[in-house]
């Protein structure tokens, strides 16, 4: 599980996160919601070590992650699928997966086989350059690449961005199933609050870098005030 | 202050300053040094009062620049009458180098393009002067220098046109290839360029009589008087400086800086990218050629080995150390160049190195190269930039 306490992050003069605190539990999906600029991406980047924090702590199963480099945090079992997916377009599908498997233990061919089984589309396109994949396929690739290293924590940054509603629905299913199957700690950052809340167990709402809500997904989804002001939902 | 009052103030002070400058030069050369020195101080005061008034600086920028150039030239010219022959030689060489540095500084600073071939452009100017003088019985000095500028500009155009499409490393490499190829070009036209030994300058170049009367070297020939050569070099540098200062502040200069910083935005505003890049390239080549032409005059000869790739690196080092894109930086670089040989000799003497040994002969390269690396890593804005920083920090207190 991931425990964030009083986390504050600033980019120069801009305060991106102010004393953010919440818990993401093992086996649960914790959605992080909020409008653009709320600090959601910064939060994930701080957890995985790309961005330094000025105050507060991030611990994973009791172990402090502050000050560690991303390369080392990743080796502890944190998988981060960044904003925009980060699929390397010049590599083939298989090369992308091989890259993800670099820190994996066990046989490479077994790991690849497992991902191809879960995502048959990738198996079909394994020798193709990732640039030829559709948006949804790229998202699958990014997830497979993160999963191939058998992480215990999965950080997902706006996976539904740019995807059609049907593909998004499929994607959310996959995330939900993976979480249950592998007993993951999932932190799901989304602007598409509706889809995220459907599969999430808990939800944290950020507004301009501060936590304005931290409750079960059901409670957050039902709260009128939250839905109107922070989630842009108009019913 | 009302505009009419300001204008008359400007007119009066300018005229007074000009008069004082002329008198100071006449008087000193004919050894009436008391009158000369007083006139000189009047000139300094007049020019200085104009320059320091920010209102006038803003309203009449061209006049201000002209006056600054004039005063700087005046000071230096007066100095030449007092300096020894070797000091004047150094001054002349350094002044010519300043012109070259102005050109490259402008290219790199204003338009963000890099050239490793300005040593070769210097060679173009240098050989143009020598070849022309060797084929004509008499030729005026102004003409032959303008010829060098034109030659440099033409070659600059030839290389500048393909350069417009190239980004940093490719452009640098292309200019490097040109610098390396320059020697082969000279060899190919060996009958004209005198092959490995180069050319000597005959007594063909003469200066106008009024100029000689002011500076009084006693003869129209250029070869005898180091002070005379230094004066010419300083005058030409002053003119070059004035033009560069105006170019820098002009619309073209501003367009270039926009292209350097954000070429996409520049294009959207309607600036022609290739045109501004070519103009910058041509200007830097022309300036380099002018400096090279002066060198030929000063040295009375030209040899191809002077204008090799090593010179191009030296020029780049001086621009960086002095301060990219600044006019004071170019002048600082010229001064450094003028006295580098002496400085290195001093170092050799005082550190007990064998002056004929391997280390001593390579000290130039080691020091310049080392300074270049240190400067670009720790003080990329060069000496001029450091001074500016310090000045601004003091102003803030």
């Amino acid at each position, binding site marked *: 599980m991931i425990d964030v306490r009083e986390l504050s992050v600033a980019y120069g003069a801009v305060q991106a996160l102010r004393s953010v605190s919440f818990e993401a539990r093992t086996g649960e999906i914790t959605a992080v919601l909020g409008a653009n600029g709320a600090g959601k991406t910064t939060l994930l980047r701080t957890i995985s070590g790309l961005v330094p924090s000025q105050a507060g702590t991030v611990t994973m199963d009791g172990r402090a992650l502050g000050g560690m480099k991303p390369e080392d945090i990743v080796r502890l079992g944190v998988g981060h699928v960044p904003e925009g997916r980060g699929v390397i377009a*010049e*590599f083939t599908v298989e090369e992308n997966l091989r890259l993800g498997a670099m820190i994996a233990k066990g046989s490479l061919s077994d790991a690849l086989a497992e991902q191809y089984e879960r995502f048959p589309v990738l198996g079909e396109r394994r020798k193709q350059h990732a640039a030829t994949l559709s948006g949804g396929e790229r998202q699958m690739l990014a997830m497979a690449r993160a999963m191939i*290293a058998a992480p215990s924590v999965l950080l997902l940054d706006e996976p539904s961005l740019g995807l059609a509603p049907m593909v998004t629905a499929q994607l959310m299913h996959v995330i939900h199933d993976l979480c249950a199957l592998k007993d993951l700690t999932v932190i799901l950052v989304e602007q598409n609050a509706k889809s995220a809340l459907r599969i999430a167990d808990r939800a944290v709402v950020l507004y301009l870098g501060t936590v304005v809500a931290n409750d079960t997904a059901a409670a957050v989804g039902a709260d009128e005030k939250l839905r109107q002001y922070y989630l842009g939902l108009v019913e | 202050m009302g505009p009419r009052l300001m204008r008359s103030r400007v007119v009066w002070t300018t005229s007074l300053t000009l008069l004082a400058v002329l008198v100071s030069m006449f008087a000193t050369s004919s050894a009436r040094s008391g009158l000369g020195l007083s006139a000189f101080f009047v000139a300094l005061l007049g020019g200085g009062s104009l320059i320091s008034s920010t209102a006038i600086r803003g309203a009449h920028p061209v006049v201000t620049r002209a006056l600054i150039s004039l005063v700087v030239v005046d000071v230096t010219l007066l100095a030449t009458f007092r300096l020894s022959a070797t000091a004047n030689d150094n001054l002349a060489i350094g002044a010519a180098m300043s012109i070259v540095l102005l050109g490259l500084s402008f290219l790199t600073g204003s338009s963000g393009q890099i050239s490793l071939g300005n040593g070769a452009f210097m060679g173009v100017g240098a050989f143009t002067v020598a070849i022309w003088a060797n084929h004509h019985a008499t030729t005026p000095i102004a003409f032959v220098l303008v010829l060098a500028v034109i030659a440099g500009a033409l070659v600059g155009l030839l290389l500048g046109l393909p350069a417009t499409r190239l980004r940093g490393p490719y452009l640098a490499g292309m200019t490097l290839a040109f610098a390396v190829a320059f020697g082969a*070009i000279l060899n190919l036209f060996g009958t004209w360029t005198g092959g490995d030994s180069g050319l000597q300058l005959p007594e063909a170049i003469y200066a106008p009589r009024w100029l000689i009367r002011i500076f009084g070297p006693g003869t129209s020939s250029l070869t005898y008087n180091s002070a005379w050569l230094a004066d010419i070099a300083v005058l030409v540098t002053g003119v070059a400086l004035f033009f560069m200062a105006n170019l820098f502040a002009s619309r073209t200069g501003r367009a270039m800086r926009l292209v350097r910083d954000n070429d996409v935005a520049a294009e959207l505003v309607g600036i022609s990218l290739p045109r501004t890049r070519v103009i910058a390239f041509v200007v830097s080549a022309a300036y380099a050629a002018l400096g090279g032409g002066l060198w030929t005059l000063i040295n009375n000869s030209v040899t191809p080995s002077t204008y090799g790739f090593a010179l191009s*690196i030296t020029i780049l080092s001086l621009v960086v150390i002095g301060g990219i894109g600044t006019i004071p930086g170019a002048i600082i670089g010229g001064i450094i160049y003028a006295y580098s040989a002496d400085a290195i000799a001093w170092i050799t003497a005082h550190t007990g190195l064998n002056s004929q040994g391997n280390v001593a002969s390579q*000290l130039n390269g080691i020091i310049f*190269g080392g300074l270049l690396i240190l400067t670009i890593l720790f003080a990329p804005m060069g000496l001029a930039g450091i001074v500016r920083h310090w000045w601004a920090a003091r102003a803030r207190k």
Partner: protein
Amino acid sequence: MMDTFLTSRNVADVLGGLTNGVIYSLVALSLVLVWRSTRILNFAQGAMAMIATYIGFAVLAPTTNYWVSMGIAILAGMVLGGLTERVLVRGLYGKPEINPIVAMVGFLLVLESVAAAIWSTSSRGLPTPFSIVDYQLAHKPVALSPFALYEIVTALVVMVFIALLFQYTKVGLQLRAAALAPEVSRLLGVRVGRMLTLGWILSTAVGSITAVLVASNYFTGLTPTSMDGVFAFGFIAAAIGGLDSPVGALVSGVALGIILQFVGDYLNSNAIILVALGMLVVSLMARPNGVFTRSAQRRV
């Protein structure tokens, strides 16, 4: 019939050009290696290789085994490359484009001056491991000597090794990933900093091999500036082929070598660098990013 053909002037030019060309390809390859991994054009490449060669051969007494000296030169090159990346280049990432160019040019000057200061500018002959006498075919010389063959074979072995390394090994995958997408690679556990250093180390290893080949050619010898000309041609080959393309380096290096051999033979030796410069200009005007690079759109 065949032997008349093989000993003809044109074939001689092709063979001679090939021998030179593979050298240019190697230089181009080392430039491409550094460019792809760190986006820096290493102007000091030739000078670094030259120093490594000096260390390999001058530090050991001249009578020692050529191959041991070659090995030491390669090691020295690798150390120099790694150190340069760590100490000098680290401070240049993310800075304006001209900063690394200026720094590497300065480094070039320092290296050549230091080499001349330590070992003087006079030429040193290196032992030649193979005969430089051309092979004979029916009592007529073919423009290929055992030494030339050694050069060609070495160059090909190096290029194949690098290609295999990049394409099929875990390290190669990481090197490519670190160059293409450094941040994403970090999130996948790639130690990007080490990959950058490795890119430089590989580049200077290739460079050292090249410099040793050039210097052990009987006619050139080793001087502080002996790699300058080779570097210039190698750079031209890399620029024409495209700084991103190892294949481009190979093809344009060989093509350049052969074309220039013909130019030198049928025209003037002074025309060689001019033709090369002309080829560079024409090629860059037609394809500013190289012939073999897939053109990348600049994102706004």
